[in-house]
């Protein structure tokens, strides 16, 4: 699993002002995990390298959004814990 400087947890949908704020704070060694309503961003993917952003599987499934991103980018809660534990910092937006 990729080791991140900062993991950004984003649960806001694309039109929420804090979504743009979050994206402007993602640095080149960071990663982004979309959760809850934040997974709606898979329909308007962020300008971040594919290996550095992820979406939580159960939230994608709930919203009928599976199949829009590569399986490598879909995480379970286990994967969320792994990313959170291994990152240097975690910011919840």
């Amino acid at each position, binding site marked *: 699993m990729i080791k991140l400087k900062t993991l950004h947890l984003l649960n806001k949908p694309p039109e929420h002002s804090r979504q743009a704020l979050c994206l402007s704070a993602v640095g080149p060694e960071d990663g982004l995990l979309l959760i809850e309503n934040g997974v709606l961003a898979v329909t308007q993917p962020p300008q971040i390298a594919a290996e550095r952003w992820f979406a939580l599987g159960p939230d994608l499934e709930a919203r009928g959004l599976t199949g829009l991103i590569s399986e490598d980018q879909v995480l379970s809660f286990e994967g969320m814990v792994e990313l959170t534990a291994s990152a240097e910092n975690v*910011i919840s937006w």
Partner: protein
Amino acid sequence: MSTLIVIDQPPYGSWEGREALDMAFSLAAFDQPVSLLFCGAGVNWLRQGQDAARVQQKSVERNLAAAPIFGVEALLADGQACLRYGLAATDLIEQASITDFGPELTGRFDHVAFAG
């Protein structure tokens, strides 16, 4: 562990900012390094001349002005947001300074947190 508490909601419309201030003041009271960052609509916390008497809330200006005395290391305002809300440096309370929001700023702290 140094902390940056971020406020992006404007004052008086909800209590999130007040609860963020409580977080910052608590850290300072326990001698933990903490700074406050106001961005988005949150920069309006720093506007001079607030009088909240007629909405029956406590005005936050005095609390914020006292923040450095209580140990909060900096009151930072995002420059872009200040522009959007028509705030020149002289419109802000004097304890605040304008900064650029981005990974260089957030990367300086061990913790970055919102109150909600």
